[in-house]
């Protein structure tokens, strides 16, 4: 079995998912993890696909040309090896919101990167003239005290003039 990460993006319309996955099904591929969403009218998909051994990158790329042309999608494919997630990472959620200005995403992500904090999901919405809202899932390395991240992020939020909250996203074991 080979694993591929496929991305596709284009103007939204009905039938993209059906048309795209039909080609993968015909090749004998199995869809593992997917994320598909629409931002305004741009529809983007990320698919992790398990392909049978006889389906290599060339054959996959050739087959995906048909839905790419039909739906005017920009498609990329990449074979990857599954790597186990690092153990002991501590999940947190960060909300950042305020009046929109350039540099919010960069300044917050730079602060996180400098602390070796990994962003695993980020969504933002420019909602109205006065509200840019960004929510992030982040993983802290096990040895990093959350208070250190919290105080660094509060400093960044003061500098940017935005509101920020940082809180644990540890799942309750029930």
């Amino acid at each position, binding site marked *: 079995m080979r694993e591929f990460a496929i991305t596709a993006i284009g103007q939204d319309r009905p039938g993209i998912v059906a048309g795209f996955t039909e080609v993968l099904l015909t090749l004998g591929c199995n869809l593992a993890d997917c994320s598909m969403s629409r931002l305004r009218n741009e529809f983007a998909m990320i698919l992790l696909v398990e392909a049978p051994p006889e389906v290599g990158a060339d054959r996959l790329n050739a087959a995906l040309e048909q839905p790419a042309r039909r739906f005017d999608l920009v498609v990329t494919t990449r074979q990857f090896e599954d790597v186990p997630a690092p153990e002991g990472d501590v999940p947190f959620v960060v909300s950042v919101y305020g009046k929109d200005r350039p540099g919010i995403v960069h300044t917050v992500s730079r602060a996180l990167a400098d602390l070796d904090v990994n962003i695993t999901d980020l*969504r933002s919405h420019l*909602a109205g003239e006065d*509200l840019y*809202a960004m*929510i992030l899932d982040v993983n802290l390395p096990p040895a990093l005290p959350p208070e250190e991240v919290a105080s660094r992020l509060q400093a960044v939020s003061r500098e940017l003039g935005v509101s920020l909250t940082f809180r644990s996203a540890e799942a309750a074991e029930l």
Partner: protein
Amino acid sequence: MPVRPVLIYPHPMLKSVAAACEFIDDEIRAIAVDLLETMRHYPRTVGLAAPQIGVPLRLIAVDVTDHPKATVCHGPMVIVNPEVVTGEGSEIGREGCLSLPSITADVRRATRIFVKGFTLGGDEVSAETSGFEARAIQHEVDHLDGILILDRVASPAEVFPRRQKTKGQGVQGE
């Protein structure tokens, strides 16, 4: 002035901790009348906190009468210096906020609460409630501590831009 303008984020009062009401006098009762009238002025609005109408005091109005989601209903309530005493159970539900008119968000709240505080007559009051009414009270009490729904979302996927922006009935922050 019965219906007062509703403050819209990033007005700084929405991110501040409100002061306890030291006396319950005619001034407080007049604010309470405005709070209820302002709440009723907006369609589908089941609660409002004094800071949202520009009064930095601990005073909330809640009324879930006839709301389809309400299972318990105490009718129109004004609570002075409210405190949520016990929270039990938890449930995710979608909330909107007049002070964040361009988004809605999924927020986890306690399903059963005891709330205590004072009536406009100055008497101590406590009530047990659950479900939608409990959610509304928790949302309003959060306003007294400068906490907005964006500070409560559990993950990046839980914020939703509203399809149509609420037209500018509110007041922008300075």
